[in-house]
């Protein structure tokens, strides 16, 4: 199993195992696996839908037409055979009629003349086994044929009563006194005011031959049964004459009919049948449906094979086209994400650069103190006017050390800000982060008389987040607020816990506000209203992305001339991320 799997691995698209969660604040625009599946599904529907529909339609229509053709052909065959059989029996009945009508009673009852009549009938029409004359008492007083039936009495035979009643009788095939299968035509005549029955036996071999001459496909069968389902002629696969047929007896129909049925072995048959009028016979033609449908099936297999090869070809083409397209998008998107990561880094450095002026000022002040203290120390040693020089010098050195520490803290804070480009989730004190960021901006706030208020509710715990990214978020928001405010403005930063598993941070300024038309676009990359003042248009876009990456949400409310409020909701733990 390992080998085929290894082979299939080669066809796995490069984006298949890509997880969007790894892409940082600038997430991929697409779920590539889902995109690929949707493209494949769409292409499969468009390309294969019509083909498969056509194949199914063709299958159904041709099957229906073939079955219809089989039914018509079977019905036609039954009709023709019915006419043949009926004609065979009718011709013999008319011949007997002719004999009785055109021969005097004395001649018919004469044994020698009966023999001549028998010979003449077989010579012209054929198919007669014997001839006999029977009285209304059932006695066969004249007989010519191969059996010893002279003087036999038929008064107890059912056919005798039927012919006496109806005047005409076609018997079923039966064994009778001769103990061999045969059938009889009996006609009642009135001769010299006395009723007689003229009876002829039909040669069943001739009868069987007539039926068996029907041209059938495969192992099809044509035969007669009586109304009780007893075979009247022998069959190829449904039994011998006088056996019971294993197929159901067709219900009476005035016309030729066709139906399908399964035999006891589960083989499906197409059966055409017709009730022969004035006889006890039902003509049946049976053919195996599988044999009849074989040519159609053969054609279908060819068509289905073509369709199957077509489908495989199309599926392969779809796979390669969809994979190629989505891979192109994936590669482009990866480049986009990578570029935006670089932009984020650049923006981060740019924001540090913007801080540089303030930082330089902050460092220059303690440096100036160091300079003066060192200078004073030198002055004391040079001018030597102080009586208690040691105390004075220690005081100067302490001051120098304190100023050096002050510089160190500033540089550490700056360095701490530049680090941590990758996500590093730790527990942090949100107030400490705010103070950290404000540390860079306190002097600017002081010089511009901007009132900065920070209020953090007491029930705010440490939250699981990325320290560097949160610093960036606050720096961007506070920088934006400072840019929007006039000197003497006020900035309010509040941290609350409105719901159990989240904190809400609001940064509110009383600056110029954002026009409503711009509000919808402020998170778009490169959208800026401060381009002339050095804005890149990435600050809020990056801030929004960072908040999202940390599992939070960010909203803004602003009124022109009144101020702007940014509302950030952050989860307490990364498990609570939406």
């Amino acid at each position: 199993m390992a080998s085929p799997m290894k082979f299939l691995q080669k066809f796995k698209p490069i984006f298949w195992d890509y997880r969007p969660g790894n892409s940082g604040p600038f997430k991929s625009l697409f779920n590539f696996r889902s995109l690929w599946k949707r493209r494949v599904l769409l292409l499969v529907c468009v390309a294969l839908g019509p083909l498969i529909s056509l194949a199914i339609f063709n299958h159904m229509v041709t099957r229906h037409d073939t079955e219809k053709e089989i039914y018509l052909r079977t019905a036609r065959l039954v009709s023709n055979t019915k006419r043949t059989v009926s004609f065979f029996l009718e011709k013999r009945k008319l011949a007997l009629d002719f004999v009785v009508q055109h021969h005097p009673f004395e001649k018919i009852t004469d044994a020698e003349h009966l023999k001549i009549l028998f010979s003449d009938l077989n010579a012209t029409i054929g198919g007669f086994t014997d001839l006999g004359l029977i009285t209304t008492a059932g006695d066969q007083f004249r007989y010519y044929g191969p059996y010893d039936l002279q003087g036999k009495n038929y008064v107890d035979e059912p056919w005798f009563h039927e012919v006496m009643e109806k005047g005409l009788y076609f018997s079923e095939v039966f064994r009778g006194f001769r103990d061999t299968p045969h059938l009889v035509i009996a006609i009642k005549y009135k001769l010299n005011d006395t009723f007689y029955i003229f009876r002829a036996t039909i040669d069943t071999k001739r009868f069987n031959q007539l039926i068996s001459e029907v041209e059938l496909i495969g192992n099809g069968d044509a035969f007669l049964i009586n109304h009780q389902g007893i075979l009247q002629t022998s069959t190829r696969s449904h039994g011998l004459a006088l056996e019971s047929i294993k197929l159901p007896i067709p219900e009476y129909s005035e016309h030729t009919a066709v139906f399908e049925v399964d035999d006891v072995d589960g083989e499906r048959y197409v059966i055409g049948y017709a009730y022969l009028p004035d006889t006890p016979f039902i003509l049946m033609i049976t053919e195996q449906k599988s044999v009849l449908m074989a040519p159609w099936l053969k054609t279908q297999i060819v068509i289905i094979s073509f369709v199957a090869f077509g489908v495989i070809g199309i599926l392969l083409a779809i796979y390669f086209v969809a994979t190629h397209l989505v891979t192109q998008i994936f590669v482009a998107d990866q480049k986009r994400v990578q570029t935006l990561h670089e932009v984020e880094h650049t923006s981060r450095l740019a924001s540090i650069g913007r801080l540089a002026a303030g930082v330089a000022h902050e460092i220059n002040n303690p440096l100036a103190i160091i300079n003066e203290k060192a200078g004073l120390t030198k002055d004391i040693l040079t001018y030597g006017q102080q009586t208690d020089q040691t105390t004075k010098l220690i005081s100067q050195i302490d001051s120098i050390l304190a100023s050096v520490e002050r510089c160190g803290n500033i540089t550490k804070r700056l360095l701490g800000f530049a680090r941590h480009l990758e996500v590093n989730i730790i527990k942090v004190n949100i107030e400490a982060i705010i103070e950290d960021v404000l540390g860079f901006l306190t002097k600017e706030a002081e010089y511009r008389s901007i009132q900065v208020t920070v209020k953090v509710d007491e029930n705010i715990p440490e939250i699981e987040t990325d320290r560097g990214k949160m610093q960036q978020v606050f720096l961007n928001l506070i920088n934006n607020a400072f840019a929007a405010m006039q000197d003497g403005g006020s900035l309010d930063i509040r941290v609350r816990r409105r719901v159990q598993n989240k904190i809400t941070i609001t940064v509110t300024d009383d600056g110029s506000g954002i026009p409503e038309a711009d509000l919808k676009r402020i998170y778009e990359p490169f959208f800026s209203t401060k381009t002339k003042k050095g804005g890149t248009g990435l600050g809020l876009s990056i801030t929004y992305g960072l908040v999202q990456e940390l599992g939070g949400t960010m909203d803004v409310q602003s009124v022109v001339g009144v101020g702007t409020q940014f509302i950030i909701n952050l989860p307490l733990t990364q498990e609570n991320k939406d």
Partner: protein
Amino acid sequence: MRILLVDDEQELVSTLAERLSMRGIDADWACSGEEALEKAGRQNYDLAVLDVKMPRISGLEVKAEMEMIQPELRYIFMTGHGSANDFYSGSSDAKTVGYLIKPVNIDILIGKIKEALSG
């Protein structure tokens, strides 16, 4: 000759004043613009050395106020910012005799003071 040093860093301004005093220059100091104006209202100075950026009242604003109190006063500005814009965006009139970047070299400062008072 009496000069007034003004900077929001008390340690800086007091030490600088002490060092100037050791060099024979009578230097007074103030930790904010308000204190500087208050002192200028009480006594006369020949020269004011002002930090540009200070909370509430900047060095430039202090100069503007002082000009009304002591019109003859001359000025030297100090700044922690390394940008020339901070120097020249303010007043560049004849009464402003110099701009110095922190940390200030005391000899240069004394040179500027002498230059200002001699002119």
